[in-house]
């Protein structure tokens, strides 16, 4: 029979088919578990599910290969020795890849960033944006200008990371200067009312509105507001403009810088219409 035909040594066609079947089944089990993980853990972050799925899938594939190879009379001891030597050579050649890979594993354990977080990595505007994907070797970010930035995981792991979304709420601050002749109490009330009216300016922690400084040209009112981290920029923009417009509607204005100059002697003004 064709199944009993020897291919090499004592390995027959049936051995080959059995080995292939074992590898195929292992890969199928791995894939099924990986797919179901996505379905079961819908609430888990995409990057975490993807990493776990990949680990499970490749573990099953490797186990399948390790079971199948002895059937094909492949000596694993020899392979391991050869593999060891290869590993040293490849290790030197791909040092940075391995560093990035290990950093990627630690990133997925520590999870300082998640997909859709707004982060700044290593400071600077260039690496500030929304995390699009955390792969095993690199992390990709979409900057606010829509630019794709790929950062090797080693850099992500070793640099300082500012995650603007890690906490659920975030505070921002304005300094609003008004004229000395304006009613500061009225200005405080107006600003307080506008913050109360804005749905996304959080009730708790409460906003702070107070006169912080009597400046050379203005009475400086400090306004501190908490907003949900996902919405803080929108709230910051909307409220600043509303405060400016509403204060002006109430004849409370932001003054220009003023300088009072005193002359020791009387001044004589010369010119055509001078008085």
């Amino acid at each position, binding site marked *: 029979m064709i199944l009993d035909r020897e291919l090499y040594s004592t390995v027959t066609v049936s051995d080959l088919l059995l080995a292939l079947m074992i590898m195929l089944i292992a890969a199928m089990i791995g894939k099924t578990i990986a797919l179901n993980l996505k379905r079961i*853990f819908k*609430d888990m972050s995409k990057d975490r599910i993807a990493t776990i799925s990949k680990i499970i899938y490749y573990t099953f594939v490797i186990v399948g290969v390790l079971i199948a190879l002895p059937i094909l009379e492949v000596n694993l001891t020899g392979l391991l020795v050869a593999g060891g030597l290869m590993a040293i050579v490849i290790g030197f050649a791909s040092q940075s890849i391995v560093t990035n890979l290990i950093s990627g594993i630690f990133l997925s354990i520590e999870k300082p960033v998640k997909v859709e977080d707004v982060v700044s990595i290593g400071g600077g505007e260039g690496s500030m944006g929304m995390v699009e994907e955390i792969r095993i070797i690199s992390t990709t970010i979409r900057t606010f200008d829509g630019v794709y930035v790929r950062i090797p995981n080693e850099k992500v792991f070793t640099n300082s990371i500012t995650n603007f979304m890690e906490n*659920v*709420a975030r505070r921002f601050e304005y300094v609003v200067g008004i004229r000395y002749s304006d009613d500061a109490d009225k200005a405080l009330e107006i600003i307080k009312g506008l913050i109360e009216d804005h749905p996304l300016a*959080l009730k*708790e922690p409460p906003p702070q509105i107070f006169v912080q400084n009597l400046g050379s040209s203005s009475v400086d009112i400090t306004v501190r507001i*908490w907003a*949900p981290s996902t919405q803080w920029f929108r709230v910051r923009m909307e409220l600043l403009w509303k405060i400016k417009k509403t204060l002006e509607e109430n004849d409370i204005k932001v003054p220009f810088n003023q300088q009072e100059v005193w002359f020791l002697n009387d001044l004589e003004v010369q010119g055509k219409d001078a008085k």
Partner: protein
Amino acid sequence: MYGDYELPFQLSTDEFTLMTETSGDGFTYTRTVGEDIVSKQILTDTAKLNISPIEPLNLPMKLTSALQIELENAIVIKPQSKRKVYLTFPVELGVFLYAERSQKSIDIFSLKKPKYTLYGDVSTGTICKYWKSTVFPDIPETNILHEGVIELSIKNNSIDWIEIHKVVFNAYGMKIFYDEDLVAMRARMAIKKEDTSVTDFINKPLKKGMKKALELYIKEKQPLKGTRFIMEGGL
């Protein structure tokens, strides 16, 4: 006011107008609340429209599934006891279109101003929709287009007197019922200790004959979402 309507129809109150007009092969849906106007083209020849009070967590955007009700007058409850009080909650009105077995929410609006707050601390807390309510001993009279009523059964399992200033609920557990005079939910609050309690809802109407409102926060679609809210950030 709440319930099913055959297309086309028109519904006007002092505060809003809902209108569907025949237009070409379908209908034009228009909703007006003050200066806010929403218009949509519905491409169907037969469909029903349903107006229902829904979980008050959709406006101005779906930001959270937690509703925090701050109590205007705090509740003090004695140890190992059970009491019942009534609170109000803001109503959001959902307009649903349905034909055969499928339904679609086409519009959500509210006649109450939305506000958000943070329950707990900044790093571990929860963003909640905010509402302030008086604590009533009996079912209060409300405008069903503005406010609903929560019957809250409080069980103090601790050995201390407990003072309650706020209650937080999870939208995935909310079961809203309505009739011509009332929009209502029934909820439970089990106090474990001074700053920890668990809230959830009872899937039964407050009065006989009340109809169940349509739900947007459906637990079956989010199997890992619980229906309870564990209040660990203080009461």
